[in-house]
């Protein structure tokens, strides 16, 4: 049994939520409520019911953006990003989960961009499955400096599959 099989993303994510869901204002508070509800549903295996909670959280964030509440929006964005990452991980296949763990372990680097990184990993796997070389595929999907370091993760993963 590998170390990752012993780990539980839900358990680790809960710890991160408890530690980081502080501060901000009204938008962050409401977004967190939905993310917590989504988390509870994912933990209960109700993945389909978790999606509307996250969509609602996104809508709150989207409509809550003003130009005088940046800290609040930052906090809300991070909460939603975490919720979406947990959902993406829960719905991922084994390959994507393996990369997901590597992203999670580097979460301080991808803070606020976890879901973006997970999605890039999904696109990477899709490209590689069609025969694109891993190094080319990694360059193709890592298109923003927020994802710096992800190409190494993706190529390292590809190296383990040879």
């Amino acid at each position, binding site marked *: 049994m590998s170390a990752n099989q012993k780990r539980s993303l839900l358990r680790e994510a809960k710890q991160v939520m408890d530690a980081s869901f502080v501060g901000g204002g009204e938008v962050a508070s409401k977004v967190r409520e939905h993310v917590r509800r989504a988390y509870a549903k994912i933990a209960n295996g109700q993945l389909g019911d978790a*999606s*509307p909670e*996250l*969509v609602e959280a*996104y*809508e709150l*964030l*989207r*409509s809550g*953006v*003003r*130009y*005088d509440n*940046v800290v609040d*929006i*930052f906090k809300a*964005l991070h909460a*939603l*990003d975490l919720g*979406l990452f947990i*959902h*993406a991980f829960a719905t991922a296949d084994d390959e994507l989960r393996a990369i997901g763990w590597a992203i999670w372990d580097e979460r301080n680097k991808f803070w*606020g*961009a976890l*879901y*973006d990184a997970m*999605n*890039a990993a*999904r*696109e990477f796997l899709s490209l590689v499955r069609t025969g694109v070389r891993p190094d080319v595929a990694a360059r193709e999907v890592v298109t*923003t400096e*927020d994802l710096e370091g992800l190409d190494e993760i993706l190529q390292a993963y590809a190296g383990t599959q040879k």
Partner: protein
Amino acid sequence: VDKLLEPIKDELREAYNSWWAGKDNEGDLDRAVELLCKIMLAKTVAYLASEGGENASLVLFATKMWRDVLDGRITADQALRKVRFGESMELEWLPRIYDLSEPGEVARSLRLLRINLPRI
């Protein structure tokens, strides 16, 4: 508009003269462009005020637009158009999502917000 421009009028004249005297100096040109953008911002604020729509959000939004002009992300015309439509733009620049079936779209939306937040 004149009142709004008053605080930067001398600075503007000085920058213009300096630029005109030594057009090869890129630093002065940058400064002249920046001041031009300040004028456009002042005009925008005046426009919003005259329309009864002056508020902190819109002024900051206008500022962000002119920063985008300075960075070459959009043209001044595009910025003015966006600002004239005012508050609706706040919702326009983050697309709606209805489910998580298109994760790429969701990721792009969050990225858009992430990229723009430090600039607001």
